[in-house]
């Protein structure tokens, strides 16, 4: 017997972003617009609360579902900001990042051989997560002409009606696309008609710039079939704390917790203390960071327009997703990196639906962003 990856692991290729990361890491002096996390540090009050909890010696496990005080605050926060009503005792599970939550949902709520429709391009973990759980994937490629929104038309044409669940992320990584209430209502109707569960990754909900964020779980007949994922990584700039949460009806949370209690036991305790403080006292910082992203978004979109680079007006997260002027976006990104020392990520790293596009993250200080845009402009000329 030797160590060989199990078949379901072997069937998943290494992350498409990996190769690019290795290339970029070898170079000095690059400006990276390839980063999928905030450039801000976590709000100081949250960091300070983490330090204080360590000083007090609060280093033991918490309840499997997360500290009661944290779940209470999450319930209040989701009610006041996203109009979501969840019972902190039975309907909220605190996880090690939203990614753990999604992994739990795949394993706890679907059976091997079930199928899941995944809106693409998407975050790199969805397809592997489903595959590790033995679930078949139905690709739902969103289209540039729809500004990468999920529509009834693409759901129908991709065969999503036959799937057991739908997974998506809006505001979207990597496209920056958002969905209005009306657009989301169409998706909800499709899911009800075809009896689909929904795994809604709303990690970027608070970074929606042109309109209010609408959670699908607030729409009629959807709460009972939806798991909503959110967390502290993006809006609160707390990626390294690894803290997220899932919200769903009691039966779903109970099933997910059954895996979580054995595999994770509880989400990181120090991070939970930081998150309590973040919800109590760091909302102003979230508003300020969001305002900064919005300015940079406008800056990047305006600059792309000035250089004649086609880009739809992405209204969420911290990504713009311009069309690549070359046939091969991977080649373009590599040349841009080598010649101008600017890193962007080819859209194909996020699934076939992203081909012909580039993910440009504006989670970067304005000085660097200005310089990077100037370099891209000179590269294009």
């Amino acid at each position, binding site marked *: 017997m030797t160590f060989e990856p199990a078949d379901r692991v072997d069937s998943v290729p290494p992350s498409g972003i990996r190769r690019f990361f290795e290339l970029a890491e070898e170079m000095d002096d690059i400006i990276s617009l390839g980063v999928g996390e905030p450039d801000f540090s976590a709000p100081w009050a949250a960091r300070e609360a983490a330090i204080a909890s360590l000083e007090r010696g609060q280093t033991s496990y918490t309840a499997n579902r997360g500290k009661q005080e944290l779940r209470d605050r999450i319930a209040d926060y989701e009610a006041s900001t996203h109009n979501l009503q969840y019972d902190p005792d039975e309907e909220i599970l605190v996880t090690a990042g939203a990614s753990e939550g999604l992994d739990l949902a795949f394993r706890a709520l679907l059976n091997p051989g079930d199928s899941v429709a995944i809106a693409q391009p998407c975050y790199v973990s969805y397809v592997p997560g489903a595959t590790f759980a033995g679930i078949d994937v139905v690709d739902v490629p969103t289209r540039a002409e729809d500004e990468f929104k999920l529509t009834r038309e693409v759901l129908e044409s991709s065969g999503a009606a036959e799937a057991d669940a739908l997974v998506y992320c809006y505001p979207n990584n990597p496209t920056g696309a958002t969905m209005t209430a009306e657009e989301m209502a169409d998706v909800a109707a499709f899911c009800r008609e075809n009896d689909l569960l929904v795994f809604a990754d709303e990690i970027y909900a608070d970074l929606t710039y042109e309109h209010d964020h609408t959670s699908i779980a607030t729409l009629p007949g959807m709460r009972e079939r939806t798991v909503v994922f959110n967390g502290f990584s993006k809006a609160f700039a707390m990626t390294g704390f690894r803290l997220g949460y899932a919200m769903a009806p009691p039966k779903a949370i109970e099933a997910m917790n059954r895996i979580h209690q054995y595999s994770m036991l509880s989400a990181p305790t120090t991070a939970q203390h930081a998150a309590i403080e973040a919800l109590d006292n760091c909302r102003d910082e979230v508003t300020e960071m969001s305002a900064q992203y919005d300015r940079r978004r406008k*800056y990047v979109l305006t600059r792309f327009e000035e250089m004649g680079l086609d880009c739809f007006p992405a209204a969420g997260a911290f990504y713009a997703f311009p069309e690549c002027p070359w046939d091969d976006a991977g080649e373009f990104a590599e040349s841009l990196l080598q010649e101008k020392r600017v890193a962007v990520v080819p859209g194909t790293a996020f699934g076939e639906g992203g081909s012909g596009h580039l993910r440009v993250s504006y989670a970067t200080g304005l000085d660097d962003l200005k310089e990077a845009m100037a370099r891209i402009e000179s590269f294009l000329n």
Partner: protein
Amino acid sequence: MSSRREILDLLRENARYTTEDIARLTDYSESEVAEVIDEFEEAGIIRGYQAVVDWNAVESDEERVRATVELNVTLDRETSYDDISDRIAKFPEVTSLRLVSGDYDFDLEVEGDSMREVSHFISDKIAPIPEITQTVTHYIMESYKEQGMEFDDHDDDDRLSVSP
């Protein structure tokens, strides 16, 4: 939609942003930005543009010495705070002057080339003003944050250069 206040916030963040930069960062056109800034300047809302200098980082022979001075004053029927502040604010050595609540009345900031120069200025020009009853001078030894800017902010970007 951007507000005029946003233009003010952006200039406070970095007064060297060009009108072109600000237009790209907001919903305003370049000419609208220029117009709003003109209006702010004319209305006395924007009083000037200055660099934030970390004097600790400057060559020692060009160093500036700064002190904050607590001033106590007495008023009478003919003399108001404004009359006293007028006299003090005129000195070029005075970089800021504020009326404050608490144990003393004015909070003064003074700048000079040496401690000696600053001391002489306080004793020769400020202390003799008849309404002033007491001065307490604090020399600034080290500055960690000025006008919202941390001087040692450890802001090295330690993120992975590419991440999902």
